[in-house]
């Protein structure tokens, strides 16, 4: 007990100290290359170790003056073709006599190689050992010359990457089927292809002490709020963490309310969705190594929007949007309503149905709450199992789950049919808005417990609590529940219904404060048909 308290005290002190040390960053001295090639190679080998894939290719070139050089790269990360064609070939065929400007020392030679010899697209100079090692680890090749303390970093990335396929978590009936991949450059290129405006900015960071993950913030300059971008960058800069393996790490580090049930940073796998959000004035955070791109800020209503809404026509899209809201309510409240109705407010149930439910309840030993909890747990187990099992076994799981859980449990008298139906409806409704899955699962449980304790009154208190939480949540300074609370008329065009595209002439003011006009003078289609 006392030790636990002491541990807590130490933990709080650690946090306080880390806050203090943030204010005085200690600058480390960076090590520069030496003039001797062999010393440099020795340093590289010390830093990188004796792994089999670290390649050091020493060679000599030049006919008038023979120069020692070395190429350092990591096998598997580089494209052999680039090394052969763009680096080795021009160097080995280098004829100094053909050059106009003679070079006196190795330093000038390095400059000439950088400017006039190497065929690769991206060549930068760098003198610091750590930076050169980092670029090696990124897949670039380092060129060292004897006699100069400057090295060249030649981009030569060429590793195996996944091709651009349809994203698995977001399939659409209509719309592009491209999805982001794990490769950073591919992701940025996909985004560039959607927004070809010069205003699209991508500001990059490297986060993660060990992983050195590339993270970039993409936004439209002039449309996105300057303060928002500053805030995002500030939060990213304060991250001094070991590793960033996925965008979820970034999300959990920079989000506004880590203990809230609702996510305040959106994510998507599809470039057109991200492009749409950037065009509204939001910022996207692309993380190397994951196809999930984050968007900030996020509103509650975004979890009910899909890309397809905007590609379908107004009436259908509005009806489906309304249905999604309804499914959310059903998913969260169905088991709670059932329990509240059968335990506290029996007068709500029509008489005939009441007798059916009573008959079902007669045969089961558990109280209604326990039954619902058991079935909810069973459903979660099924869902998790379905995710983790290898595909060949998946069929067996679905059959076992459906038959055993549902039918046999009812026949054996473990659970009653109405409860199974309720939980099944709730579960199915949950999948209509998959983005809400985490919040729905927890909310459903909380409301079930509340309704078991205090019936309809408990549900009401829980709803009020949830509403207050939603209304007070802010995502990067934007109220989370914007559209419903506070309610503005301009928000209504994309909230419960999806107004026709030609009528959505302004961007939402929460994000784009300066450049609000989306489209000027857009008329409804029937105006175009005047002959």
């Amino acid at each position: 007990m006392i030790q636990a308290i002491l541990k807590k005290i130490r933990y709080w002190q650690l946090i306080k100290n880390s806050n203090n040390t943030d204010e005085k960053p200690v600058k480390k001295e960076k090590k520069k290359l030496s003039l001797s090639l062999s010393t440099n190679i020795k340093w590289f080998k010390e830093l990188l170790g004796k792994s089999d894939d670290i390649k050091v290719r020493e060679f000599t070139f030049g006919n008038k003056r023979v120069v020692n050089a070395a190429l350092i790269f990591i096998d598997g990360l580089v494209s052999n073709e680039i090394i052969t064609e763009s680096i080795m070939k021009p160097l080995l065929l280098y004829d100094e006599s053909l050059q106009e400007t003679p070079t006196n020392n190795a330093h000038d030679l390095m400059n000439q190689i950088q400017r006039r010899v190497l065929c690769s697209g991206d060549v930068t100079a760098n003198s610091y050992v750590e930076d050169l090692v980092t670029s090696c680890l990124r897949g670039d090749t380092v060129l060292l010359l004897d006699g100069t303390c400057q090295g060249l970093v030649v981009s030569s990335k060429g590793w195996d990457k996944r091709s651009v396929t349809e994203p698995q978590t977001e399939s659409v009936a209509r719309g592009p089927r491209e999805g982001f991949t794990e490769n950073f450059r591919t992701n940025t290129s996909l985004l560039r292809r959607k927004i070809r405006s010069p205003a699209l900015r991508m500001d990059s960071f490297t986060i993660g002490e060990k992983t050195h993950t590339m993270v970039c913030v993409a936004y439209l300059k002039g449309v996105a709020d300057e303060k928002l971008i500053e805030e995002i960058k500030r939060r990213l800069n304060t991250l001094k963490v070991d590793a960033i393996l996925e965008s979820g790490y970034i999300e959990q580090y920079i989000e506004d309310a880590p203990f809230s049930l609702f996510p305040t940073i959106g994510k998507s796998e599809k470039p057109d969705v991200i492009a749409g959000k950037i065009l509204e004035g939001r910022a996207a955070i692309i993380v190397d190594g994951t196809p999930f791109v984050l968007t900030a800020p996020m509103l509650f209503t975004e979890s009910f929007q899909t890309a397809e809404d905007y590609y379908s026509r107004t009436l259908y899209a509005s009806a489906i949007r309304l249905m999604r809201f309804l499914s959310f309510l059903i998913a969260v409240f169905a088991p709670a309503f059932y329990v509240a109705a059968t335990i506290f407010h029996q007068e709500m149930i029509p008489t005939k149905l009441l007798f059916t439910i009573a008959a079902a309840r007669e045969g089961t030993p558990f109280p209604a709450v326990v039954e619902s909890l058991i079935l909810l747990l069973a459903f979660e187990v099924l869902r998790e199992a379905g995710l983790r099992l290898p595909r060949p076994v998946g069929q067996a799981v679905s059959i076992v789950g459906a038959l055993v859980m549902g039918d046999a449990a009812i026949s054996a008298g473990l659970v009653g049919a109405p409860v199974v139906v309720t939980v099944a409806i709730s579960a199915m409704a949950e999948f209509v808005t998959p983005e809400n899955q985490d919040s729905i699962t927890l909310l459903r449980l909380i409301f079930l417990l509340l309704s078991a304790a205090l019936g309809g009154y408990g549900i009401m208190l829980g709803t009020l609590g949830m509403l207050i939480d939603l209304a007070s949540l802010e995502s990067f300074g934007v109220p989370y529940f914007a559209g419903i609370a506070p309610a503005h008329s301009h928000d209504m065009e994309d909230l419960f219904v999806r107004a026709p595209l030609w009528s959505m002439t302004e961007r939402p003011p929460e994000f784009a404060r300066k450049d609000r006009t989306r489209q000027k003078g857009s008329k409804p289609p029937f105006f175009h048909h005047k002959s």
Partner: protein
Amino acid sequence: MKKTKISSSQLFYTIICYIQSFSIVMNFSFGISGRDTWFALLLGSGIAFLSLRINIAIMQHFPGKTLVEINSILYGRKVGKILSLFYLLYFLFLSSVNLHDIGDFVGLSILPETPTVVILVSFMIVCGWAVMKGLRVIVRYSAAFSWITFIAFIVTTILVSSKVNWHNLLPVLTTAPKSILQSAWITSFIPLSSAVLQMVAPNVCKPNEISKILTKGLWTGSLFMIAVIIRDTAVWGNMAKSFVVPAYETLRLSGFSEVFQGMDVVYAVILITLEFFKIALLESVLLSGFSQLTNQKSHPKIMAVIVSVLMALIASQIFPSIPRHIVFAQKTEPFILSIFEFFLPCISLLRIKWTCRSRS
């Protein structure tokens, strides 16, 4: 003094929500004036409008300042602080009485066997948490709540229309004038209290619109209440006197086909939500008044917890039984309320005029 900014439409809907939430307690006036309660409410709105004008005049003299600050300026620091303390006690009294109403109502309608303390404590947990988040958050929902109530009213009136008998309202104005006046006196202050608004209103972004919004809000809310009372009278006639919550009984009747006949809980929940809004508003007003009294930027979070617990305790003990509560509300409460709503503002206004005159 940190001020939270609320927009004018939010203030408008706040007033309407506040007034609508009193549909639970219309029994006080029904018991006295029976069929002609709607007329009593009309008169009561007139009286409330009068007291509102007085309060608006005071507010316009000190733009952007809340009640507590105005008191300190008008009456000097010491007396002003004591007066503000009385006002705060008055808010505490108001909220405890309303909380007691909720406990009664819930115990009557949806949870008959639960001890009142449980109902009140669970209510105050959510309410206290909402107040800790701030007035801004609570007021954000005012528009949604009041629109839901409007729609519920329209829907239930349509569903009850087969049972409505307009002859129940006739003959008009046959009850004794004394009863009507007493009823008007009750309804003018219980639902339509302006002191609370005086605490909230200065937070609005556009101060010049305050008087227009307050008046519009008051009249819209009162008209809605009159409509509710007319409907209840039309359905129940003289029987409305004997019900504890006549509006709820009408809601219980509404429904079509057997499936939707038992929707009492849903309507009760809507009424309780309005009450939640009102109590959260009162409590946050109390706490902000307290913080202004003690010259702090904002109230410490622990105060919200203390005040919530205090309110729950008071509310559970304040009246021994419902009939006593009704008698208190009909006889004693209007006098207490009229002191704070009417007479004290009158005195403040006179003092303002006197200081103005003595200066010029």
